[in-house]
């Protein structure tokens, strides 16, 4: 039990916090129910994919500043390809866009490895490159999305033999998120490759000496991040029906969620569940403040303050545990 607590303590605390916030929301707004939860899941979706992408890179010991730009690029690519095309054609577009995301991420990773320039500088430069590429694909918001793709995000999942009272609380957006992340992350984390991602993140020299191919691992981690970012880009196109070449506020939000989710900058620690819960917490705080009719600008202050206080407490705990 204590081992379980120690390993998953942070994530469990986040779950408790999320539950507490849901109850609080119910108190503030008695009408808040399944519909509200559904729209929360839809609003959180692109943020969740951005946070997932950032998590993988931070675990391997890097940081990716180009995530929002990659999302913009994949989003406009999808919107442009689906513009005026048939519904069936979209079935081809989805894997193509995911492949593009994978390649973009792999390019980021390869450049980090080849140039030996610090991750933060490489991805800073690539932020401009991907943003420029997005502007070349579409220089103003436009394009279209297939109807069946849009429908994937709206409504709830119907499962036979389970009363709708329960299925009402399972929005399609949430299922989509869990399936998409799970299909990639669970096999990866269980594999040798996943283990080497953590090994490289915690000590790349030690990993190298134990025979891990550090360069290949880094490229794979960045490629997976690119894949998650392209999922985020697709979701953006699906929810808005168009593609916008200017990156949204996903970079800052992804870093905030990663930190709040218990993934330490520097690498080697954490998982995917924490940051995803953190995304939902941050979105819910935003919803609550809206319900309380607080100036939406104050919300930004609250978000920043939560982030700063959490990392300060984290730093304090770290210092305590280090000193005897």
């Amino acid at each position, binding site marked *: 039990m204590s081992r379980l607590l120690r390993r998953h303590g942070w994530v469990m605390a986040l779950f408790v916090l999320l539950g507490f916030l849901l109850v609080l929301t119910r108190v503030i707004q008695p009408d808040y129910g399944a519909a509200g939860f559904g729209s929360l899941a839809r609003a959180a979706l692109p943020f969740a994919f951005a946070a997932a992408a950032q998590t993988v890179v931070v675990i391997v010991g890097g*940081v990716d500043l180009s995530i929002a730009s990659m999302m913009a690029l994949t989003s406009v690519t999808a919107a442009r390809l689906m513009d005026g095309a048939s519904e069936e054609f979209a079935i081809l577009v989805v894997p193509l866009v995911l492949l593009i995301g994978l390649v973009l991420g792999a390019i980021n990773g390869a450049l980090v490895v080849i140039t030996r320039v610090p991750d933060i500088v490489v991805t800073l430069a690539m932020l401009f490159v991907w943003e420029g590429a997005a502007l070349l694909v579409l220089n103003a918001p436009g394009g279209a999305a297939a109807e069946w793709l849009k429908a994937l995000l709206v409504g709830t999942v119907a499962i036979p033999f389970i009363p709708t009272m329960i299925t009402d609380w399972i929005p399609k957006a949430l299922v989509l998120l869990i399936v998409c992340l799970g299909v990639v992350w669970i096999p990866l984390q269980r594999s040798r490759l996943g283990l080497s991602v953590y090994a490289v993140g915690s000590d790349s020299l030690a990993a190298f000496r134990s025979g891990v191919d550090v360069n290949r691992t880094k490229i794979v981690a960045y490629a997976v991040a690119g894949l998650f970012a392209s999922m985020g880009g697709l979701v953006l196109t699906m929810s808005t029906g168009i593609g916008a070449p200017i990156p949204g506020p996903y970079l800052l939000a992804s*870093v905030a969620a990663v930190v709040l989710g218990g993934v330490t*900058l520097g690498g080697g620690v954490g998982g995917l569940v924490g940051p995803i819960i953190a995304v939902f917490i941050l979105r819910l705080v935003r919803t609550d403040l809206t319900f309380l009719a607080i100036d939406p*600008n104050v919300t*930004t202050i609250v978000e920043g*303050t939560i982030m700063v206080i959490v990392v*300060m407490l984290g730093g304090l705990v770290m210092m305590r545990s280090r000193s005897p």
Partner: protein
Amino acid sequence: MKSFLRDRPLIPLTILLIALIVALELLRPGIVNERWIANTIKFAIPLAMLAACQTLTMLTGGIDLSVGIIATISAFVMATQVTTHDPAVAIAISLVPAMMIGLANGIGVGLFGVHPLIMTLGMSLIGTGCLQVYQRTVIATGSAIPDFLAWLGTGRSYGLPNSLVLFVPLAALIILGLRRTGFGRLLYALGDNHHAARLSGVLAWQVIIALYVLSGFLAGIAGLVYVGLIKAPSLSLAVPLLLPSVAAAVIGGTSIFGGRGGYAGTIVGALILTVLTTLLTILQMPEGFRRMLFGLIILAVTAAYVRITEER
């Protein structure tokens, strides 16, 4: 040859700057004249001042991602306060939030051991929110730019931009301060080996707090100069300068891991970025291509830099 370049990183950088200017002159003969040089310097100075914040913090292994919003806040607060106060008072008021954010950064990084990237990012979120809330309280007051700042930001005397009056002493102070004073050496020491510096009796937290307050102060001043140049205070005035300011410091040879670099290189880096922007504008490519080239050139220069200066 390699060791020669390693010891004098300014030489390849200056060669690159000259090459860019030559390329510009070849593409558009006659463009490089006195007026153009003055304009380039004018636009490079606010960038170089923000890049000073990055250089100083990077020397200790940190980074300050809040400078963009700090500069914007001080510019906006000054422009709105000057309608009811004396310009000097308005400037003094506007620098208070700048240094407060710097102080909070310093406390987080120095006392609580928070990663500078996250701490300054969080403070920039808070700063953005505060600025938006502040904007709603002054929505009716309007804004103005005092003549002095407009003179400083845009004016020219004897063909040279007036902002040099502020910038040259400031740059000299930073360059000499880093080389000759105890505080400067402490920054290098902390960045080179944090643990060793602490063991030799450096009170690291005091140095870090002073450093980030200084960084906030410099960013505030940069914002005031920049609003004198742009003349239109907005809620995102200097925010687009944030990433180029990091790029300028990195191109200028300051290591993001700390302990190596200097401000002279950063100034050349800021000039290179400004000339590069002009060059890309003149090529009349689509906006997308320009951004891509901008990113690729930053990457290429830093990669070349790493190859040249690499130890071993």
